[in-house]
């Protein structure tokens, strides 16, 4: 077929394709409950090597001894871990026969996002009758990557095909016992993505889980491992701007990034799980552990736009181990109605001349609670460490809350740490000013919120940024009145 890289990029932009890697599991579901046998059975189902099975079991044993954390500024009914089925094969059967059967509210949102009909069908789980040229695109796409030695596949596939890499790095940044949810994930993770960029290679395109994620549902326990070898670069997009309706209430993912010497990883996320109804019923609990390790001169940037989930508990972090390494965290977190978000980052400065930047924009509306929680830690040997943090909160109405919990632990006197925080409210005068220029209130809020979030939106890859803007608009819809 012979695609040029330009053509391929175009194709990627139109997004009318899927990557087409699936995990081959027969369809059956385990009984509810969790014990060592279940963990072993998951591993067996996935035909994993013994070392992987033992790794999971070790995690499970640790998890059994752990207690669910309560320090986050969120309140919810704790999930019953014995009432979840930990293995369920991707649904192969289509849920609906035509779009007419799909929830009209969902379709309305798709339209607002400008998602094509075919894609809408795919997202909503409708049988697709139009056969898209997906396989060939996926193949070409994989070929381009393979030529550069880049590995991008499901983690299940990686465990089988690249065990030496997985074995070396999995759990190296987020150990099995790191925390309650990480331990649970390590024991039962269903699937996820794996990516390896060889030495000195610049990944020629944004790697994205956009489609695969919609394909079968990510499952509750996703595991991602990204390794950027010395001097390489990759930009990785996670998530999907389409609304996700998921019956799974609890999501506990783990993402590990490893940036070896002189490597750079840019990791962008748009999180838009079902936030629950306007009355606060339902919605996803999202308890994620994301952490990256930077070796000498390496750089990791986390950029996230969080608009979904009923409860979010998430702190993408950087361990700045190598000298001169750089960690960045850019975040927009929107909460509306009864949503609760406790999100932020940890920057752990271990090496000399390490630098970190934190820009957090929290937007709260309705009766929601939005907390920023950040830790900047400077180790005693980290000479000349520098951090700049800026946490801005925007409030809409009088019933929501914004909270900032910055923790600073500096054990080296040469550390320079700056923290700035602001809280503002969308003023009636601002809205009237916009109204007077012909801009209605809904649009005015979108404009003001986009302006407020600009520094972070600017960090997102172009097409993602446009969609993220629309998403902000949609998630704040009806927040004034």
């Amino acid at each position: 077929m012979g695609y040029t890289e330009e053509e391929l990029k175009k194709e990627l932009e139109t997004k009318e394709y899927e990557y087409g890697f699936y995990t081959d599991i027969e369809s059956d579901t385990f009984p509810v409950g969790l014990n060592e046998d279940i963990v072993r059975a998951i591993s067996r189902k996935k035909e994993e090597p013994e070392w992987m099975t033992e790794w999971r079991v070790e995690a499970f044993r640790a998890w059994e001894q752990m207690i669910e954390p309560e320090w986050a500024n969120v309140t919810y009914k704790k999930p019953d871990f014995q009432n979840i089925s930990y293995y369920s094969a991707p649904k192969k059967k289509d849920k609906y026969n035509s779009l007419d059967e799909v929830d009209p509210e969902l379709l309305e949102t798709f339209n607002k996002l400008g998602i094509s009909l075919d894609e809408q069908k795919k997202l909503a789980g409708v049988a697709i009758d139009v056969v898209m040229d997906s396989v060939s695109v996926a193949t070409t796409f994989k070929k381009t990557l393979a030529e550069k030695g880049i590995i991008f596949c499901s983690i299940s596939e990686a465990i089988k095909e690249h065990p030496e890499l997985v074995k070396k790095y999995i759990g190296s940044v987020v150990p099995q016992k790191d925390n309650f949810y990480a331990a649970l994930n390590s024991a039962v993770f269903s699937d996820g993505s794996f990516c390896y960029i060889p030495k000195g290679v610049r990944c020629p395109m944004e790697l994205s889980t956009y489609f695969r994620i919609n394909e079968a549902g990510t499952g509750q326990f996703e595991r991602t491992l990204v390794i950027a070898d010395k001097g390489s670069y990759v930009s990785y997009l996670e998530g999907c701007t389409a609304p996700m309706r998921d019956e799974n209430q609890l999501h506990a993912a783990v993402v590990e990034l490893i940036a070896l010497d002189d490597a750079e990883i840019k990791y962008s996320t748009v999180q838009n799980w079902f936030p629950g109804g306007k009355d606060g019923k339902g919605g996803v609990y999202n308890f994620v552990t994301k952490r990256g390790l930077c070796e000498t001169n390496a750089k990791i940037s986390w950029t996230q736009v969080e608009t979904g989930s009923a409860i979010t508990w998430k702190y993408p972090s950087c361990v700045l181990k190598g000298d001169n390494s750089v960690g960045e965290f850019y975040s927009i977190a929107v909460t509306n109605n009864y949503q609760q978000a406790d999100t932020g980052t940890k920057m752990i400065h271990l090496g000399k001349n390490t630098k970190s930047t934190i820009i957090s924009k929290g937007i709260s509306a309705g009766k929601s609670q939005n907390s920023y929680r950040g830790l900047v830690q400077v180790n005693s040997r980290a000479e000349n460490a520098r951090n700049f943090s800026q946490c801005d909160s925007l409030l809409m109405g009088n019933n929501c809350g914004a909270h900032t919990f910055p923790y600073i632990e500096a054990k080296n006197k040469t550390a320079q740490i700056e923290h700035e925080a602001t809280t503002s409210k969308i003023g009636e005068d601002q809205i009237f000013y916009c109204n007077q220029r012909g801009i209605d209130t809904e649009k005015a809020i979108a404009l003001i919120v986009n302006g407020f979030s600009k520094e972070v939106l600017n960090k997102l890859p172009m097409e993602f940024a446009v969609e993220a803007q629309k998403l902000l608009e949609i998630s704040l819809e009806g927040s004034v009145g």
Partner: protein
Amino acid sequence: MLKINNLHAGVEGKEILKGIGIEVNAGEIHAIMGPNGSGKSTLSSVIAGKEEFEVTEGNIVFEGEDLDELSPEERAHKGIFLSFQYPVEIPGVSVTNFMKTAINETRKAQGLEEMPASEMLKKIREKSELLEIDRKFLSRSLNEGFSGGEKKRNEIFQMAMLEPRLAILDETDSGLDIDALRIVANGVNRLRSKDNAVVLITHYQRLLDYIIPDFVHVLLDGKIVKSGGAELAHELEEKGYDWIKQEKVSN
């Protein structure tokens, strides 16, 4: 074009406008003068539809339509423009982006397509030249960190971009230096036509040297107490408001 009949309006039970009647026809320029706190800005806000104020009596008719039921943005779509006495800041939103949104939202309301980018750029170039605005200025956040005079000039730039039928300029001259005043006044004059009208709210004769009004009204304690031609402004400049107050008392 604009007809205000016995307008009473206030806020939280406090009456500020106490029976105002004005008629503005297409092609005319009206000046409204009056002491601080007499209700000039309130009048302009009420015309623009600010919900904070409650109309208790009378009405405002624009192009034959009672404005009462219309939201502020609907009034804007009909061609009412207010240059604010105190323009607000919108951080992170550039002047260009703001104008693009305003124009396209108005067009949408009128059932038109979005303005093509090339046309928008041409218009921005033309109007910024007219008002001698540096292009760099247009990529800055709206009013954020603008000097007093810059904010006012930016209001008139927006007016030029939106080409309203009725423009109400609330103390646009305050805070402008001598050159800026000339540029802004020149801009307003250039945008005049037989189809649109301007209401100038001002404290000073100097603006009226550049933009010569057809009518001058004196607003005192929520009422129009005197109306006249351009010469009335000169008289006020000379004598202040006391004589009008006395005239009112003796009546």
